[in-house]
């Protein structure tokens, strides 16, 4: 399998898996919302990031860390072959460090044993949970003066770098900007210059590269 397997919508992944002869996943990436998963998919396609044997799904926009922890427990309990689980969490109204700490506590509260922990940079972390590596990306561009920060911040950053006309002060979150602009995410990323993508999504690319390294 060469491309990301997106689990949602369920009907598409059902047919893909049911019809595939030889399919197995080493990694699952868990995003908060469906747009995040879509952006990751388009980024990989645009930049030629080959995340072989990787699946991606989302938590339906749910931001509760306890809920995300529950999903990670379920995935780690039922999988035999997964080596890595990537988790993409919005920074929200916190600082990335605090958000990561809260996420870690949500795991510990569910009696998940964390044997190793690394801070890759201020928004990317690596945890060892049993046989699975958990690569955690706390998403958001803190240079923006938004009420809360999310993965959508990177899209706004890309729009600015691509010279889209946006009056940022009018909006309280990146999500509002994207809704207002009625932006086609696929077109935005595909038409953008690579160097702008590297700048806007630098933290996300570190996250994806860490996942790729763990594939080896």
């Amino acid at each position, binding site marked *: 399998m060469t491309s990301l397997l997106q*689990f*949602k*919508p*369920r009907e598409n*992944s*059902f047919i893909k*898996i*049911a019809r595939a002869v030889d*399919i*197995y*996943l080493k990694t*699952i990436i*868990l995003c908060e919302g469906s747009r995040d998963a879509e952006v990751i998919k388009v980024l990989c396609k645009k930049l030629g990031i080959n995340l072989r044997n990787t*699946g991606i*799904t*989302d*938590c*339906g926009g749910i931001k509760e860390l306890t809920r995300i922890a*529950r*999903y990670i*427990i*379920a*995935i780690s*309990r*039922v*999988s*035999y*072959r*997964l080596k890595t689980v990537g988790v993409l969490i919005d920074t929200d109204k916190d600082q990335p460090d605090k958000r990561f700490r809260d996420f870690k506590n949500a795991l510990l509260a569910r009696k998940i044993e964390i044997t190793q922990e690394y801070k890759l940079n201020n928004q990317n972390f690596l945890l060892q949970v049993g046989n699975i590596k958990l690569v955690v990306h706390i998403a958001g561009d803190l240079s923006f003066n938004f009420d809360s920060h999310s993965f959508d911040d990177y899209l706004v950053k890309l729009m600015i770098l691509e010279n889209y006309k946006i009056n940022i002060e009018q909006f309280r979150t990146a999500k509002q900007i994207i809704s207002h602009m009625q932006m086609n995410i696929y077109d935005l990323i595909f038409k953008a210059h690579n160097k702008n993508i590297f700048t806007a999504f630098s933290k996300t690319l570190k996250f994806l590269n860490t996942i790729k390294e763990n594939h080896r």
Partner: protein
Amino acid sequence: MLKALGIHNFRGIKEGEIKGLSQVTVFIGKNNSGKSTILEALYLASAAFNPEDHLSPIVRTTYTSKYCQKIVYLITRRHLENAYAEGLWYGYDIEKPIKITLTFSDGKTFSTIYMHDHQQPYVLMNSQKRLFLQITKKGIYKIEYSDIGSVRTAVKVDSSILNEILGNDYEHKVKFLSNIAFVDVLLTRYFRRIERTFWKKILQYRLDRFLVKLIRDGYDVNAEDLTYVPINGGFQLVVKMPTTYVRVDDLGDGVKFSLVLAMIFLTRENTLVLLEDPECHQHPHGLAKTFEALMKLAINRKLQLFITTHSIELLRIISHIAQEQNLDVSIFFLERDENGILHSRRFGIDELNALEELAIDARFLYVM
């Protein structure tokens, strides 16, 4: 209640162990992963306590006189033609014994052994002696097989022996294992046999009302009652409707299978019920209403259910009802490697729901 099961040299499983069985245990996995073999292993183990099963739809074969009913059913259920006893052994290696090990919730563990030249499996005693049993209305008997054909004698078994193997509550455990019901879709073809076996008891306690409600709620048949009507010189069970009647034989396969399941659940208590692919012939509505009824009966009648399925709808239905009824459910995803080793992944309703929310279909867990 059974908590664990071990299988050695049986069918396609050379070795396998399943721990953490619940009151409702569901087995999922690809074809040829060993789901049905697990049900058959439990059925085989039960033959060590009671070799007879008047429910099993046995076709008369050359094996009928040679083996006990449960063994004949195991030999023939997958092959109505060209059935052969050696097929019960892993790799047809009849020199090695088939061994099924069971562990009860109180921790008592024992093994049943089946050898090719035996009529029925035996319980392995600590002293490595063999114990062939048969439960009757009068009690538990030890069977002594003669060397000639099927001649056998039965003597009342010494309770201290059973105490040693199964513990103080051996009587309960022997009944629990011996009254097992193996329900597969083949039974719908033998509806009359089920009806003859159970109807008296069902009518005696007016459990027929339960069946009428099930037909009405699950299958939109405007049933008022079940009764017998003289047809072709005999009597046949029919469903009475406001203006006419319909023979039970003429109902759809889904309704008949649901009736078979309900009759078995209504007349069993404190035992194991093995359900192979109960979604067969079922529309999701009928399946949901049938399982709503069956799982309530399983709680009330203390039945431990082992279910194999390929249906995600059935998993959802079981998960939903289990949450409503506060019922303990374990789901096992099974895989069998090329060396015949069974691998299982156990998870519960919470994990199933989490996977569903992530759109990960539990039937495809082999990809991850």
